[in-house]
C-alpha cells in the first residue's frame, strides 16, 4: 500500500479500479443467492431492475453533470414536481380528450417539456448567472419540493382511476417479459455510454470538468457544454417520471425524496470522479444496481435489524469506493 505511489504495476491498479464496482456487484449477487432461494427468480430480478430504473435513468444524466464538474441536488424534487404536473395535466384534460392513449402522450410530453425547462433553469443560473451549482440546485430543490406540496394541497395528487388502468402497463408490462422501465433504462444507459465514450460531447464534458480554462482555450464552448449537461439531466428526469407515474398513479411531497443523493452515490460508486474530469456511464449503472440490491437483500433476509439498513448501505457504498480508490489522489 505504501509503495503504490510510483510507476510499477499500473495495469493492475487500473484493473482494480475498473473491477471494483463489478466485484462489489458480484459479491452482492452471490450473498443474495445464498441467503434466499427466490433471489435469482425472474420475478425478483424484474422487480429489482424495474425499481432501479428511476434512479438509473436519472443517474446516467447525473454522470454527465458530475463529469463536467457540476452537481444537481434538485433531481428528486424535480421528479416529484414533474410527476405532480403530469398528473394534473392529464386529470385536467380528461374531460376534453377522454380516457385513452392520446392523453397519455400529452402527459409524457408534459413531463419531457417540464424536465427540459427545469434543467434549462438550473443550467442558466449556473452558467449565465455564475452561481455555484450546489447553491442553485439546493435552491431549486426546495422550490420544486414546495411546489409539489402546494399543488397537492399538502396531500397526494392521484391520477384519475380510468387513466390509471391505461397508463399502468408502462411500468408493469413490456416486450418478451422485459418490462418497459428496464428497456428504457437499458437504452438510456447504452446511449449515454456511447455519447460519453465516442461522442464529442462526452470528451468536451470531461475536458470542462477537468479544467475549464484549458477547455476554453481548446475552443470548447464551456457554457454550452455545461448547459447541455443540465438540460440533458432534466430531460432524463422527465423520462424517469414517465416511468414512475404509472406505478402508483400518484405523486405527493414524499415522492422522490433523497433520489438526488442515491443518484449521486451511484455515479460515484461507478467510478466517476466527484470533482469532475472523468465519467463512466456503465459504472453508474453498476452503482445503481448495487444500491437497489442492498435494499432488496435486506428485505429478503432476516437477521439484520431494519433500523440498521442505512448503516449497511453506508458501509457497502464506502467499501465499493475504497476498492477503486485512486492511489495518486492520496497525496
Amino acid at each position, binding site marked *: 500500500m505504501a509503495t503504490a505511489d510510483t510507476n510499477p504495476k499500473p495495469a493492475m491498479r487500473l484493473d482494480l479500479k475498473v473491477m471494483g464496482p463489478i466485484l462489489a456487484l458480484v459479491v452482492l449477487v452471490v450473498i443474495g443467492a445464498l441467503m434466499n432461494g427466490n433471489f435469482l427468480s425472474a420475478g425478483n430480478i424484474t422487480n429489482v431492475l424495474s425499481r432501479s430504473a428511476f434512479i438509473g435513468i436519472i443517474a446516467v444524466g447525473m454522470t454527465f453533470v458530475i463529469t463536467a464538474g457540476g452537481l444537481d441536488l434538485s433531481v428528486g424534487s424535480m421528479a416529484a414536481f414533474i410527476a405532480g404536473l403530469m398528473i394534473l395535466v392529464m386529470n385536467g384534460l380528461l374531460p376534453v380528450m377522454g380516457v385513452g392513449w392520446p392523453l397519455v402522450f400529452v402527459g409524457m410530453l408534459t413531463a419531457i417539456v417540464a424536465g427540459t425547462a427545469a434543467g434549462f433553469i438550473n443550467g442558466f443560473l449556473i452558467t449565465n448567472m455564475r452561481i455555484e451549482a450546489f447553491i442553485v440546485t439546493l435552491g431549486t430543490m426546495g422550490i420544486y419540493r414546495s411546489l409539489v406540496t402546494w399543488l*397537492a394541497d399538502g*396531500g397526494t395528487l392521484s391520477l384519475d382511476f380510468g387513466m390509471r388502468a391505461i397508463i399502468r402497463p408502462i411500468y408493469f408490462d413490456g416486450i418478451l417479459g422485459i418490462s418497459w422501465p428496464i428497456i428504457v433504462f437499458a437504452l438510456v444507459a447504452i446511449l449515454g455510454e456511447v455519447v460519453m465514450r465516442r461522442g464529442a460531447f462526452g470528451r468536451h464534458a470531461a475536458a470542462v470538468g477537468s479544467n475549464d480554462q484549458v477547455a476554453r482555450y481548446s475552443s470548447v464552448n464551456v457554457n454550452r457544454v455545461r448547459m447541455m449537461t443540465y438540460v440533458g439531466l432534466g430531460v432524463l428526469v422527465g423520462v424517469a417520471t414517465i416511468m414512475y407515474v404509472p*406505478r402508483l398513479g*400518484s405523486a405527493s*411531497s414524499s415522492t422522490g425524496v433523497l433520489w438526488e443523493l442515491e443518484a449521486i452515490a451511484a455515479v460515484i460508486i461507478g467510478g466517476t470522479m466527484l470533482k469532475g474530469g472523468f465519467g463512466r456511464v456503465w459504472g453508474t449503472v453498476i452503482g445503481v444496481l448495487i444500491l437497489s440490491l442492498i435494499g432488496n437483500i435486506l428485505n429478503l433476509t432476516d437477521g439484520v435489524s431494519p433500523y440498521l439498513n442505512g448503516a449497511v448501505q453506508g458501509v457497502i457504498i464506502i467499501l465499493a469506493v475504497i476498492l477503486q480508490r485512486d492511489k495518486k489522489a492520496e497525496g
Partner: protein
Amino acid sequence: MKLTHSFGAFALAATLALPAFAQDTKVIGVSIPAATHGWAGGMNFHAQQAVDRLEAVYPGLDFVLATASDPAKQVNDIEDMMATRNIDALVVLPFESEPLTSPVKAVADSGAWVTVVDRGLAIEGIEDLYVAGDNSGFGKVSGEYMVSAMPDGGKIVAFRGIPTSIDNERVAGFEAAIEGSGIEIIGMEHGNWNRDDSFVVMEDFLSKHGQIDAVWASDDDMAIGVLAAIEAAGRDDIKFVLGGAGMKEMIARTRDGDAMIPANVTYPPAMIATAIEMTAVGLTSTAPVSGTFVIGSVLITQDNAAEFYYPDSPF
C-alpha cells in the same frame, strides 16, 4: 386559566410594552410539522380550517400558523413566535419529543398557555393541555380486528412507519393484541408511511414468502403501495390489507365493500383542530380545559364508513 383571571392586568402590561397590539387581542401560535406525508397533509388542512373558523368566531383572537419541515426549524418557529408575536398560547405538535421539550418549556415558563398535540414532550407536566392520539390503542384495535377477521390464525406481514416512539407504541399494541391468536408475523419492515417504500418492501415480501394470508399495512399510504404490489404480482393468497388513519379514498373503498380493504382504524389528523378549538375556548371563556384529552382510535367497517368520509379533506 391563570391568564384569563389576570387578563386585565396582562392586557394593560401588554399595552404599555407593545403599543402596536390592540389591547384586547390575544395571539395563539400554532406550530406543526409540514405536510410531508398524507396524514400530515390532512393535519395541515384541519389546522388551517380551525384557524380560519376561529378567527371569524372570535374577533379577539389572532393566530400565527407555522409549519416546519424539521425539528430545528420548528424550534426556530416557536422562538420567533415568542420573540416577535408575544404569543399568549402555543398549540404545538412536536416534530420530535426531545428537541422540542426545552423550547416549549421556555414558552410555558413565560406564562403562556401550552397545548401539546399527539406527540408528548420528554418531560411531563410542561403543558397545560395534552390532546393525544392513542397509539397503543391504534395498534390494539388493529390487532383485535386481525384476530376477529382471522379466527383460525394465519401468516401476516406487517409494515412499520418511520422509526419513532409513535411507531413503537403502535407495534407493541398490535403484537399484544394478536398474542396467542395463532396469527404469526412472518415479516416486518419499515415502509416509512410512504407509498413507494411500501411498494418496494411488499414486492420483496411477495418474493420471499409463498403464502401470506393478510397484511397489516398500519397506514393507508402504505396500504396503497402494498395493494399495488399485490396487484402487480397477481397473487391471490392475500385475503385483505388493513391500513389505518382513515384516508378518504380508502374509507370510500371500505364503504363500497372492497373485499381487500374490509376495515380501517382511525387516527384522525383533525385532532389538531380539537387542540386549537380547546385552546381558544380556554383563552376566551371560563370553561376549564386543562388536563389530558385522549382521542381514541375507532374501528371503521363497511357499516360505519360513511360517517368517517370527509370529501373536502386532502387526506
